[in-house]
């Protein structure tokens, strides 16, 4: 049974079809049609719902958005599901709803329920949001009619001084209900959608069903279901495995459990590396980041994933586990071919170990795509240099979108080490190496030529931005 609160109502759902998405559950099974399907791929946000989760100390609930079209039922286990129909109190509109009406924020209205839910999530996570916060909160919602200005204004106004709503008023009882759900959850047995709670149970399921795919946030796997109409007979969800959600810090190392949602991982990583905020706010969209996991992004081994170039540049380690033995591999050795990795059949990624900042470190992550929000990289380049007294002590870099795998460029790293950073020759040496370092492909996002040029020019940007004197503007968007 998947157990969750349907708004305030505890429900137990027997999932006979592991391929059922939350959206299909809502629209087809429950006949709740307020939540819309725009793309069935997590790209438009018309299907956005809010999932309420207990905080670690069981004292609070956080409300985050999820694309229900690519969320499987396991995403609801032990959570509160809130949909657009739940927001009115009696017949009275929620403040985010009435603001949208007053600001003329809907035209055709098909995207509106999704915007309402994203705004609702922001309503519960902030007061006095800045325009950037609103843009970030609504970055996963597309509107084809309004041009967004009235939606931004409405959300700013509604969230400026959020008054308590019924979700605040009911918080105590909701927390109680969620705790009750979670006490029973260990017993959750599903015939074909397994949700192990710990490492050992995960190992057992994998041994039992070696052919069942592992799924974490399902933001990629669900596309096979909704786009290719693939039917999985059995899935093993790692999203509930306690060990995979840990965060550990030593003086030198940040260890992030592989099943941490990107949003949480981002929070941890940017505490130490604030310059990475830009990359992470452009990493898919907020609802996808709330759902997708860091481990999933790495295990997918997509050449255009946004985390792998970062892990390559930071020379991170991956902990691979089979439930009995853990082995550690360098991210730099992990990607062995197009969507191929060192992971063995019975292994999963346990955690990602990132080195913490060093002195004199310059780290910059650049992503270039057709659209700033919610787009996939044409090229992603991450440069990580240690520069002491103008001398490059060490340079490491990671690239996405330039090869069949996330890639490094050893020649760049060796030829720049030891150079005088101020010297234009250093810039030129890097450019010369990068010009021919990769043989990327033409595809729907960019041509091979453009990609080649971007690699060179992003190096140029890195060089310019990290010169000491004479700062020049290098960006069209400044990320906070």
């Amino acid at each position, binding site marked *: 049974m998947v157990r969750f609160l349907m708004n305030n109502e505890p429900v137990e759902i027997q999932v006979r079809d592991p391929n059922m998405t939350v959206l299909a559950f809502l629209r087809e099974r429950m006949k709740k*049609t307020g939540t819309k399907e725009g793309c069935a791929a997590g790209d438009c946000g018309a299907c956005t719902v809010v999932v309420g989760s207990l905080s670690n100390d069981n004292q609070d609930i956080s409300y985050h958005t999820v694309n229900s079209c690519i969320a499987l039922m396991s995403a609801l286990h032990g959570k509160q599901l809130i949909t657009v129909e739940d927001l009115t109190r009696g017949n009275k509109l929620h403040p985010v709803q009435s603001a949208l009406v007053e600001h003329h924020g809907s035209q055709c209205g098909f995207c509106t329920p999704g915007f309402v839910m994203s705004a609702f999530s922001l309503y519960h996570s902030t007061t006095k949001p800045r325009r950037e916060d609103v843009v970030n909160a609504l970055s996963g919602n597309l509107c084809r009619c309004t041009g*967004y200005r009235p939606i931004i204004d409405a959300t700013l106004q509604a969230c400026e001084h959020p008054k308590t709503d019924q979700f605040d008023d009911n918080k105590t009882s909701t927390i109680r209900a969620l705790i009750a759900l979670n006490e029973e959850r260990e017993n959750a047995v599903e015939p074909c959608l397994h949700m192990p709670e710990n490492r050992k149970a995960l190992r057992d399921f994998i041994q039992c069903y070696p052919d069942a795919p592992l799924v974490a946030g399902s933001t990629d796997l669900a596309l096979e279901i909704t786009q290719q109409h693939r039917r999985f007979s059995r899935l093993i969800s790692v999203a509930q495995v306690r060990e995979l959600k840990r965060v550990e810090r030593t003086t030198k190392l940040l260890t992030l459990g592989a099943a941490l949602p990107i949003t949480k991982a981002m929070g941890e990583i940017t505490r130490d590396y604030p310059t990475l905020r830009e990359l992470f706010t452009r990493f898919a969209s907020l609802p996808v980041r709330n759902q997708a996991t860091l481990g999933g992004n790495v295990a997918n081994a997509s050449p255009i994933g946004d985390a792998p170039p970062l892990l390559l540049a930071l020379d991170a380690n991956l902990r691979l586990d089979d439930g009995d033995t853990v082995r550690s591999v360098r991210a730099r050795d992990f990607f062995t071919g197009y969507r191929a990795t060192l992971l063995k059949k019975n292994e999963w990624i346990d955690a990602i170990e990132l080195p913490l900042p060093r002195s004199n470190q310059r780290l910059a992550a650049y992503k270039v795509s057709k659209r700033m929000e919610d787009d996939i990289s044409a090229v992603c380049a991450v440069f990580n240099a240690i520069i002491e007294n103008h001398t490059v002590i060490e340079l490491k870099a990671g690239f996405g979108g330039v090869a069949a795998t996330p890639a490094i460029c050893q020649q760049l790293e060796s030829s720049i080490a030891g150079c005088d950073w101020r010297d234009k020759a250093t810039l030129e040496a890097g450019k010369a190496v990068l010009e021919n370092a990769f043989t990327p492909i033409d*595809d729907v996002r960019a041509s091979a030529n453009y990609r080649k040029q971007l690699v060179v020019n992003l190096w140029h940007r890195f060089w310019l931005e990290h010169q000491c004197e004479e700062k020049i503007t290098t960006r069209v968007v400044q990320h906070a």
Partner: protein
Amino acid sequence: MRKLIQPSLAETSNSRLGKAKPHESAERQVRGEARYVDDIREPIGTAYVGIGVSQCVSGNITSIDLTAVKASPGVIDVITVDDVPGHTDIAPVFDGDPVLAEHRILFYGQPVFAVLATSTDAARRAAQAGVVEVEETPAVLDINAALTQQSFVRPTHAFGSSRAKSAVAQSPHTVSGELSVGGQEHMYLEGQVSLAVPEEDGRMMIYTSSQHPSEVQKLVAEVLGERLHKVTVDMRRMGGGFGGKESQAAQWACIAAIFAKRNQCAVKCRLPRSQDMTVTGKRHPFENHWQVGFNDQGKILAADIVVNGNCGYSADLSDAIVDRAMFHVDNGYYLGEAHVTGHRLKTSYVSHTAYRGFGGPQGMIVAEAIIDGIARKLGEDPLTIRKRNLYAKATGNVTPYGMDIGENLLGDMIARLENSSQYWERRNAISAFNQHSPVIKKGLAMTPVKFGISFTAKHLNQAGALVHIYTDGSIQVNHGGTEMGQGLHTKIAQIAAHEFGVDTDSIEVTSTRTDKVPNTSPTAASSGTDLNGKAVQNACITLKNRLIEFWADTLGIESDAAKFINNRVCMGEHSIDFAELVQAAYIGRISLSCTGYYRTPKIFYDRKTGSGRPFFYFAYGVAASEVSVDTLTGEYKVDRVDILHDVGASLNPAIDIGQIEGGFIQGMGWLTSEELKWDDTGRLLSTNMATYKIPAIGDTPREMNVSLYKRPNDEDSIYHSKAVGEPPFMLAISVWSALKDAIASLADYRIDPELSTPATPERVLAAVNEVRKLSEGSTL
């Protein structure tokens, strides 16, 4: 002799006109209660359609093996074109659009067969199992190949001066150019969907998401082999249309209806997004070129312009679309001795179709490209050249198709926006910035819009309405227009409320139904309110006259100028509650239901001579956009936009501003990030929202100042308002021009960068590189 009530401008303070009334469905939309076709509770036994499509681009079908499809779980029925009981061609105007492929494959993704199953998922999965064998034939994949082969969907049309070419040659200066203009995916958030419910005696009820219910009715009847009166279409709202549901929503209703008739069950046909993007047409890509002669002041003396529309495999609406492109190559400028040619090229792509602006944008961008070219040649600011070339009574006021444009509002509008946007101060600041910024370059451009209002197919410029007053004084309004988010029903309710002097909550605008108002035109060409508003007003006036005449009879007085105001009717010293009068009229056996009708006056166009007055009037607008361009990556940002737009006397400023802002951002998407990609063999690659990028929330300029130009329409349009759906879309050409301005700064504004659209970061970087190469002394 009783006095008839004359339509009047909103004069009373309580009038519902001119108010920023929220969209009639806004509350239901934010609650998730606004019902779209896929939200309708399905009848018991409803079955679902999956479409089987061709994987090849061009060829002859040699065999279709559907064994595996039929054996697929949940499958109820499978059809090919051979199973269509009536017509197999569902083309809207000219022949050539088979409902399912007939012997030949004409484009990648063409529907070949359809499956009916117990669930949408089962139907779609089964559809994947079909095996279609095709003997491939050569495809026509670009405009030049089509031109060489004289491959046209419709004959070429041309108008203007036969002396244009020689006049260009004799001009003191000339500029020539060519521009590849990209197409555009509609990306309505609600995909194509229809629900067919069979009724007794061969009747069929269709719920559809369509801009053209009457055409759906006609085509469904035809494929079923029935007459039109057997089919009723109900259309409450669309989740966006933008032209993509004008002619191309019918196919899915037809397929659903065929299944519904064969299986006597309700049938829903809803396309998955990737299929929707593959099998429906887009905005036409164009390849345009021109030669223009001008004098030392940059005044255009002559122009020879050719526009080439890539129409795809069939005519669809392309004849009128290429016409409209031709009608807009002048934009707001007098071109002197001008000649315009428009080719309609038949290619092996999906049949491109209506899209907001209907070819107008692809034509209009030529005018702005020409102006930019002249300005760079003369070293003048493009705005200066724009102003020098505006239509004016003294220097030239007749279009290349022979229409006197009357009062050109652009001169005054540009002057106002120059001032309010501080164009020249910002121009100086940008020049200074660019001199000291080696990587980021800023650009600024102000471009006007003059857009012709009316369907160029004259017969479509008519509309009907049906208005019922019930005995409690509540009023139901039906009309031929469809609601796709543009606020048509809101404006219609305001019009009826104004006419009857009642509150808008006394007015219910119903779903659009072919059994209420027959033989309607599509809701397109920005004409929804102009046409249907007038028809509704016409019905309201008839009803008002009946009420007044009856009341005057009752009172035993001459009917005199009566006023409908504050839910009351006043005549001389008499005054009565509206509902009370309605009840008395009912008892007095007065008909309280009435049709209304309107046809646009004054318009005509003679294709033989290429001249006439195809437009009732023009809607105008001006926009100034400022951008920043990253010359290392080609990334850019629209920093600020100022817009002054002409909607005549606004019926609803909030809705009008919504159309202006939304149209602008959609136009910006067309010109920037929205890139349709086909592979070398003609297969569409950008088939989902992950690979086709419409503007997201972060693309909205931080500063966006939009004002309405307050001047009633000179023509007798509904309360002297103006159409607003399409014209603002073209304001976004200012973004494209501003990008070129930023790039031109690299060569001290002496080179006009070639920048085909969409101007993706990749294309911008290519233009940057090209300009750098052409110019000496680049700063980096």
